[in-house]
């Protein structure tokens, strides 16, 4: 169950609480080719972020830090303020580190079916993964000359599923914002800055401690 929940929510690769949440698209067209193209166009992404989260109780949390995505390897979410920790997720495991780089918790995902789902973002957009996406999500792509939006929404709200919807805003091929609503975390808005996309994925390990 733990891995299942984590894997489903790992689709929400970025998080943040929204103050001015975009309207959820009413017209939904599954367009996985665009999604696949976007990921493959940006196999390596680094950015800084500012996250605003409004939790179910109404309490608001703000944080900032850095983000790194490596296609075929995994991703890292490093919070630098007001706490310092880092989370690394790959198709094999999920690890949380403290400010000194000490591993606080590890969750082994190897051999678990949902790890293939989780790993799809980090490794490949396989046909099987796309079928799974199609079963669970609507993906809408809205494109104009200045902006391309990718919207991923749940097709059905299962009680076991936490993610209600997710919106990724990409402008001129550059990741700008992510919005999502989670039953457990509330509304989250993430604004990215200093985004750098490159087609070369570094071979060294993630830098856990800045």
């Amino acid at each position: 169950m733990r891995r299942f929940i984590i894997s489903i929510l790992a689709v929400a690769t970025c998080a943040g609480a929204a103050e001015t949440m975009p309207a959820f698209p009413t017209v939904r067209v599954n367009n996985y080719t665009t999604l696949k193209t976007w990921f493959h166009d940006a196999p390596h992404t680094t950015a800084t972020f500012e996250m605003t989260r409004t939790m179910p109780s109404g309490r608001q949390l703000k944080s900032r830090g850095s983000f790194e995505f490596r296609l075929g390897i995994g991703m890292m979410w490093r919070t630098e303020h007001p706490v310092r920790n880092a989370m690394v997720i790959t198709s094999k495991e999920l690890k949380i580190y403290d400010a000194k780089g000490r591993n606080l918790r590890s969750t082994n995902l190897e051999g678990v079916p949902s790890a293939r789902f989780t790993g799809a973002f980090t490794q490949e957009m396989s046909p099987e993964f796309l079928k799974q996406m199609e079963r669970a999500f609507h993906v809408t792509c809205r494109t104009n000359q200045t902006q391309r939006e990718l919207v991923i929404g749940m097709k059905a709200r299962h009680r076991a599923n936490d993610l209600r919807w997710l919106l990724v805003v990409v402008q001129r091929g550059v990741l700008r914002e992510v919005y999502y609503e989670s039953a457990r975390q509330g509304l989250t808005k993430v604004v990215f800055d200093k985004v750098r996309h490159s087609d070369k994925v570094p071979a060294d390990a993630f830098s856990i401690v800045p």
Partner: protein
Amino acid sequence: MAATTVLLLHGVHVNTSLYDLLPAGGRNDSATHALERMARASSRQVNLLIKGDSEDKVLARARKIIDSLPEGIHPMTDNAGLSRVGQLLYQYRYQLLSDRHRQALETGDTAALKEEALANLYSFVPLSLYPVDEDPYGFATSFLLENPLVRQNGFEPRDGVLLTWKDGALYAYIPLMLPESAADSLDEMQKMMAELASLCEGDDVMLCGTPVHTWRASTSSQNAMSVLSVLSLLMIVALFLWVFSSLRGMLVMGGTLAAAGVVSLAAVVLLHGHVHILALVFGCSLVGISTDYVVHYLVGHHDSQDSLIAPALKRSLLLGLLTSSLGYATFYAAQVDLLAQIATVSIAGLAAAMLFIFAFYPLLYLRHVPVKLAPGALKLGAFVARWHMPAWLPWGFAFVSVMLAVWKLPICDDLRSFYRPEPDLLAAEKQLAALNGMEQGMLTLLVRGEQPEEILLRQEMLADWLKKAGVPYFSSAAVLVPSAARQKENFERVKKLAAEYADDVPLDMPDTWPGALKPDDLLQSDSPFASLSYLWDSGCGLVLVPGQYRMQLQALPQQPWLEQADRFADLQQQVRSWREQLMWLMGIVGVLVLILLSLFFGPRSALCICGPVAAGVMAVFGGLALLEIPLTLFHVLACYLVLGLGCDYAIFRATHVQAGMFTALAVCVSFLTSWGVFGVLAFTDFSVTQDMGCAISLGLTVAYVLSPAATGAAKLRCRVLCEPGK
């Protein structure tokens, strides 16, 4: 009519579970009750396995099957059920702690807990199953996900299905629960299982679990028995047509058997209150001996207008009844309910058949039954009557058989070995065992206590011992619901932690202790854990340990409240005890029959009469030894049938109540009828009936073939009996 009235008024309750036969074995009532509940729960659980190479295919197949499940069958891992469990446990989140959190609080390593809480709060994915601001430390999440009962195997819940990878293949496991009513009704279970099996056709789906075995075995037995019953009936019909040129005798015989059956059932219901299926099967088989009586009556009245039963025939019939009843009456001495039931069914049935013959046959004979033996039958009688052999030959045969048995007769009392499941079912069971780490079965520990809290405390103590002994996972109620003392202790520690980090990780927890969660609150709820309710009883708790840790259990401290229970071993011990008692009783019966016959015919004649019977019974033991087939309880029970039928053959051959040709023919027809009824059981697939069929075939054949050795043994005395005026 009286018997039918009794049955109508009283009703018939037939027990079918082998566990019903087991005595408490010195355990208290709650322990027995807990074990019975576990057996009953197991008897309703069907395990469905779907194999595939992709999640997509496996989940689609699983969903299709779940959506079409027959009414009454429900999956035990559905999302709604898991959600209900989650909600219930969440209410007690400050007092139900995982081992990891409890250890951290015990050692005072609270800084790590705070770091974890902050990671939860600021994580881009939620690491908690609950609203992160209500459970930032993840206590409830860890308690559920790190619980040994949830994580003990590699299964991952997904859309109400448990998934796992093994040897490069993906398996979906769906435990299904049949309704209570299916456990009580074989018909209902068969119907449900047939519907379920039709949904699960294909090489990618496997079904296993106790109901599948019950369904397959009972259906296979019923099919085999149906075919064999028809064959058996055709054989007997052909025999009667050939011997008597008419089937009217068969109708009378059918009426006799029906009357005997109803009376025997009424007797057992009146005396014992209920009847076990085994008693009914064996008892009714023994009642089949009464067909001999009918055959002797019919053959004795060849071409006769006198419907009365000749006094000599009457005495021989009574003697046959007496020897059989004497044999089965010894079952009462064993003080085993099952054996007493068999004795009641047999004695009451045989007596009823005899009364039916004495009271009604003379009335029916002239109008409806007059028979005339066919010429071929008369030739057969004349041929068989010419067989002669020395009186010592059966005893010599019996001696050789005994020596063979003493030399190398293997014995088996394990009921599991009697059952040989079909290869695909066996493969499914092995696959599931390999997936859930239960290749070597499950061991059961009983933890007793005066109060529920005491049992939980002892289970927690046992859990510590098991971990120290190297047992990483096990199932018990205390794993899910700790003792009240531990829950309160946890609550106080969490309260202290919340106060310590109130600024960094605010936690809105109650000031006062809200009370403990009780095992019944969880196990009796409408949730997947309800299927584990057998683990908990107010007087006794069960702890289930995988079979591979058998050695580790020996290292546990000896405690009066702790006991390892093995129901299979109990059952094996019980079966051994029954078999030994039956073998001793058979010896006693032999001696009693010898004494009885000595009183009638003198010791020498009695020995001559008993020779073929002894040879028939001993041939079973010797034959098994020769073929190196283990002796089972069912072979011994079959020997009683050989004893009853064989006695009749020898008595009639010895007393020679009719002209030699007719006696020989009557015994021959009796033998062929009995073989047609019981011998065909040897051709069934079910090992129990197969064992009985083989034993009866061998024993009866030997007893019949050697019965000429008793011919005329009581000739002089019989003449006196036949002519009382002299």
